[in-house]
């Protein structure tokens, strides 16, 4: 019942926002729906973790275990923060004459949340695929919301590349389904039934299927070399959508990947998927570090940094063992918190300076101290400095890596140093110096950036301690993945 309500709220909200004309009413519904989704999402997640159990609804169509619960918690939390932020942001971006764009924004945001929640709470791998393809369809007009030449190019590229990429994931799903039905007769395309039949699957077919799955869902997760749409789409989308695309949508792609990995590892042993993940992880890190070193656009900088962090998470999954996977899941949380924080702040900077060019943003700390200070703190968190969460999770991942794949870990750490230098140099240019003369002092957005304090507080908490409730939740999620 809880799972049905979780999906129903964003769906109903999207429908009603699409029909309404009154802008303040739309905003109220948007905010209330996001908060209600958060409340129900957290209730569901806590219930699953507390009881170390799973929830099932609609005749096994929906199913949430500890891993789904982690994703639900992330999607609903960041969804709510982005929803509050977007009230202020969209008002500043689209005045009363552009109510139509505002309505499109709020409607599609709710559809976007709905598709992500469906993807992580369904047991049917076919429905999961449909939902993940639908995330692309829901966001493509959001990327092109301003309908400029650049955003059009970004959105079209995103639409075609993601659709083709994810079509490959469907072939992988069909092949897994085939392996399942050949191995044990009539079978549902459910994760639970495939997982139960995993040891009887034809290993050759499974090997082939996983390559398709990895390339297909890897495209959605922004892994190199399938990442080429990502810097464009994530930098052209409105800030709250960039925050959700980088912060949670990439993780939904990874989620689909590890669901299959759990099955594949039973059939083939973990060596096969680990080698592939280490390869894609290292390549993503290398590509991202090269582009981060000379980046001139701060939104693209954040987007490439997402490619980097998805690479780090894949490395954690590839290093494997309890701590490798633990670090990877913890890093999913840390990256989501820090990247969404930075993307929303980048929206505030864009509203103030009206440019995404790093060289034309000067004196951020002076012109708007709050945004500038938070942007600095977020960047420090993102490049992995203490006392913030990503430091801990990267430390755990690379400790596991040094033990299992020393050379991969050493190369990855060297690449992280490059990223560190590149990002700090860029952000440094933005923070200091004289702000342009005609620029007014003070913050553009006031109350709507308040929820970002949640991201900040959680990042600090995760950097100083590991709450036992979270450690326990992650432990259960690892058990789902077979660790």
């Amino acid at each position, binding site marked *: 019942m809880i799972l049905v309500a979780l999906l129903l709220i964003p769906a109903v909200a999207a429908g009603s926002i699409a029909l309404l004309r009154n802008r303040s009413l739309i905003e109220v519904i948007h905010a209330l729906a996001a908060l209600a989704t958060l409340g129900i999402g957290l209730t569901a997640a806590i219930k699953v973790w507390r009881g170390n159990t799973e929830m099932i609804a609609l005749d096994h*169509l929906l199913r949430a275990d500890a891993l789904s619960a982690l994703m639900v918690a992330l999607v609903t939390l960041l969804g709510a923060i982005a929803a509050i932020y977007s009230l202020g942001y969209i008002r500043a971006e689209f005045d009363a004459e552009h109510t139509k764009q505002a309505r499109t924004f709020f409607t599609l945001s709710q559809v976007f949340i709905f598709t992500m929640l469906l993807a992580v709470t369904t047991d*049917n791998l*076919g*429905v999961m*695929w*449909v939902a993940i*393809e*639908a995330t692309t*369809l829901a966001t*493509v*007009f959001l990327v*092109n919301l301003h*309908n400029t*030449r*650049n955003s*059009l*190019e*970004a*959105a*079209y*590229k995103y*639409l*075609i590349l993601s*659709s*083709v990429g994810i*079509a490959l994931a*469907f*072939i992988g*799903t*069909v*092949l897994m*389904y*085939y392996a399942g*039905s*050949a191995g044990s007769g009539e079978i*549902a*395309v459910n994760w639970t039934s495939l997982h139960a039949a995993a040891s009887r699957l*034809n290993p*050759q*077919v499974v*090997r*082939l299927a996983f390559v398709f799955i990895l390339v297909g869902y890897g495209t959605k997760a922004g892994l190199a070399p399938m990442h080429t749409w990502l*810097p*464009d789409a994530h930098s*052209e989308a409105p800030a709250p959508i960039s925050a959700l695309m980088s912060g949670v949508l990439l993780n939904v792609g990874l989620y689909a990947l590890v669901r299959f990995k759990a099955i594949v590892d039973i059939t083939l042993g973990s060596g096969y998927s680990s080698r592939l993940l280490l390869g894609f992880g290292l390549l993503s890190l290398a590509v991202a570090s090269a*582009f981060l070193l*000379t*980046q*001139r*656009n701060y939104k*693209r900088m954040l987007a490439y940094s997402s490619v980097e962090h998805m690479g780090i998470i894949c490395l954690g999954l590839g290093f494997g063992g309890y701590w490798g996977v633990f670090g990877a899941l913890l890093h999913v949380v840390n990256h989501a918190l820090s990247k969404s924080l930075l993307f929303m702040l980048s929206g505030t900077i864009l509203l103030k300076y009206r440019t995404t060019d790093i060289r034309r943003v000067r004196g951020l700390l002076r012109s708007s101290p709050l945004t500038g200070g938070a942007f600095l703190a977020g960047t420090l968190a993102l490049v992995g400095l203490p006392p913030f969460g990503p430091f801990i999770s990267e430390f755990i991942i690379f400790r596991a890596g040094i033990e299992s794949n020393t050379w991969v870990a050493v190369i990855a750490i060297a690449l992280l140093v490059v990223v560190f230098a590149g990002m700090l140099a860029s952000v440094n240019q933005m923070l200091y110096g004289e702000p342009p003369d005609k620029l007014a002092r003070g913050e553009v957005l006031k109350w709507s950036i308040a929820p970002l304090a949640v991201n900040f507080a959680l990042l600090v908490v995760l950097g100083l301690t590991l709450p036992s409730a979270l450690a326990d939740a992650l432990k259960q999620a690892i058990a789902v993945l077979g660790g």
Partner: protein
Amino acid sequence: MFVELFPKLVNLLASLALGTAFLLIARRDLRGQVRLFAAQSFFVSILAAVIAVFASSAELFAVALGLALLKVFIIPAILHRAVSRIGLQRAVAPYLGAPAALFVCGVLVAIAFYVMAPITSSNPLPTADAVPVAFAGVLIGAFITVIRRRALTQILGFLMLENGIFLLALLATYGVPFIVEIGVFLDVLVAVLIMEVFIYRIKENFDSIEVGEMGRLKG
């Protein structure tokens, strides 16, 4: 009689479907390309209906009807409307000429047979022999999406890729469950409607539907 003929009929229809993808490579005019896609969808839905009769599956027959309705009539109608609205386009040379592209397609077919070997060798179904043909259709669809400059032809490449995947699922497992099929149809329809809007917006902004004109986002 039907049981003996069945694998041959399947192979024939699958090969016809693949043949239309080859023809699309050689064809320049947009309306002809749309008609080729409709023809391919027609062969695929007939194939689905034949398998539905053979496997006596009412569900699969419904899927075949749905496919025919969506991909032989509705989507081609949408695309023909798009062609009329953007007006006749002068012929644009693709990134790769037709002879070279056809050669690549030949190579892709060989690759498809190689990659899908584990499926054909392990699959007891009488339709399994045609699985590589379906996968070749997927690869050629992806290839068309990459080498063509016009947005509409790219979309046709994507749709042919979708047809190939449907065919693959059909031949390897007699189709995926009904609910998934419905979801996929819905996604494809929405994707085509969105792509249609993009054709208009690209035309409006760049004054042509050549994707090659776009290239500002780099680095």
